[in-house]
């Protein structure tokens, strides 16, 4: 059987960052990803990231992806692609498929960095071609360079909805409107301001009633919501669009952590059921760590910091780093991570995270 010291599942920002820290400490690490290309969602992030210099602020997401890949290559990290992981065994054996063959990899530590999936939204007509996740549209325009439609309705005003609406216009589409069921814009004002300057109206307290069309979306009916989130009769409006993008949040991809027997907590602010983890990103199953969106939906910048934390903790647990050195490294990473979890947007996530970590520590006591 193939052996490694650390198996990292998922080659997105969290997984790659974790692998880099293990390799930097001299550990043997194998990253396994089901996709044909590494980088997770980074290669479709064509906008400049926020944060500070240490978070690579001002650098476009795909450039950060390129930097991470160059670093994994330089450090000799093994990255297995086209390899979906389908099983995890209690002895930390990872089962994956590659080229139609089942392969087993025995690891001393496992980092699950499986990411998250877009939430669907069901409404009459939502199965018509032309209705898609905003992330799917973003992959089409920025990775495959295919415009999904000419005129778009965006549903959801979180950062994903705002950013993808902007990028659809950069790619040449027209965005007819952005609607949001809540009473205020969910994402950063600066992202909203970009699409407003481009003339896109943002309708708050509005939802989609139905998409219309024979064999693809030809128009969509939106409706205002009252203070009890009920449709206001007579407020319906028809918009002529050929594409409806759904950006209504993400849910952590936790299947592998369930399979491993990790204890979970339900934290709505983090996207639903998430594995409990401690300050080292270790779950309730010793030797199994998590990082990135699986531990609570946040941004790529935080995912990378969590990956670095998990990777450093793995290296420490394997004896590759002494306690003092590991503590120094982890302290710096935690400070950078906390800097991203401040302010009105980050504060809620920081509290939710502290609550999750608190639950995990309680269980140990």
């Amino acid at each position, binding site marked *: 059987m193939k052996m490694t010291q650390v198996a990292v599942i998922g080659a997105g920002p969290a997984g790659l960052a974790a692998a880099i820290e293990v390799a930097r400490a001299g550990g043997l690490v194998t990253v396994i990803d089901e996709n044909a290309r590494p980088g997770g969602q980074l290669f479709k992030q064509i906008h400049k990231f*926020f944060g500070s210099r240490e978070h690579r*602020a001002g650098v476009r997401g795909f450039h950060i992806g390129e930097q991470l890949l160059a670093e994994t290559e330089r450090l000799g990290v093994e990255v297995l692609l086209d390899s979906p992981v389908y099983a995890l065994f209690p002895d930390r054996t990872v089962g994956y498929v590659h080229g139609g063959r089942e392969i087993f990899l025995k690891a001393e530590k496992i980092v699950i960095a499986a990411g998250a999936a877009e939430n669907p939204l069901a409404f009459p007509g939502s199965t018509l071609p032309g209705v898609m996740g905003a992330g799917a549209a973003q992959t089409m325009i920025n990775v495959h360079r295919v415009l999904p439609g000419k005129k778009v309705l965006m549903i959801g005003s979180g950062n994903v909805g705002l950013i993808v609406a902007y990028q659809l216009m*950069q790619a040449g589409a027209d965005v007819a409107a952005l609607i949001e069921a809540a009473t205020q814009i969910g994402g950063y*004002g600066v992202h909203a301001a*970009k699409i407003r300057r481009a003339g896109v109206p943002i309708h708050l307290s509005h939802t989609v009633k139905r998409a219309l069309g024979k064999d693809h979306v030809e128009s969509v009916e939106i409706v205002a919501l009252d203070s009890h989130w009920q449709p206001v009769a007579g407020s319906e409006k028809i918009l002529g669009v050929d594409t409806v993008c759904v950006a209504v949040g993400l849910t952590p991809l936790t299947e592998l952590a369930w399979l491993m027997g990790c204890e979970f907590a339900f934290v709505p602010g983090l996207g639903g059921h998430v594995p409990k983890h401690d300050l080292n990103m270790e779950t309730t199953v010793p030797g199994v760590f998590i990082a990135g969106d699986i531990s609570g939906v946040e941004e790529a910048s935080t995912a990378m910091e969590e990956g670095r934390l998990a990777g450093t903790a793995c290296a420490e647990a394997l004896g590759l780093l002494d306690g003092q050195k590991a503590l120094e490294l982890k302290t710096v990473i935690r400070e950078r991570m906390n800097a991203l979890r*401040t302010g009105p947007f980050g504060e809620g996530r920081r509290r939710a995270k502290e609550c999750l970590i608190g639950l995990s520590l309680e269980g140990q006591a």
Partner: protein
Amino acid sequence: MKSGIKYTGIPSEEELRASPGAPSRERLEQGPVAFIECVQDIPCNPCEEACPFGAITVGEPITNLPELHGDKCTGCGVCIAQCPGLAIFKVHLHYTETTSLVEFPYEYYPLPRKGDRVPCGDRQGKYVADGRVVSVKNAKAHDGTAVVGVEVPKACYLEVRTICRKEWSRHG
């Protein structure tokens, strides 16, 4: 309808007035100056490092709003392309007797060319006035964020923040 960035996606007059990144009226009178329209405490500080003159400070925590120090700002505009939120502009109120110059970040193709006459829009993309493109800066360090300068009638220096892209076609 409630005003303010959380409700409209546009910083309100009050928000801009209260923002430490907006230059004072006196400073605007004195010459070209950066106009930072960042009114939410988000974790971000590249503008601070971008300014070669120390005219923008964020400090700790990095969620602080950027503060513009009008006395140090030379109006060079290098901060514009370094803001990931595309929220920094440059305003030269007295560009000529009758016109002002406004520079803004622009990430769409086609880019305008120097000398083009373009319909200029406000923060909601609404047409304000025609403007003449004075400069299109797109250095490598901008990493794809072009900075377009337009000369517009003086009365609209506080309004004009973009090109009305849909109304304008370079070949039309």
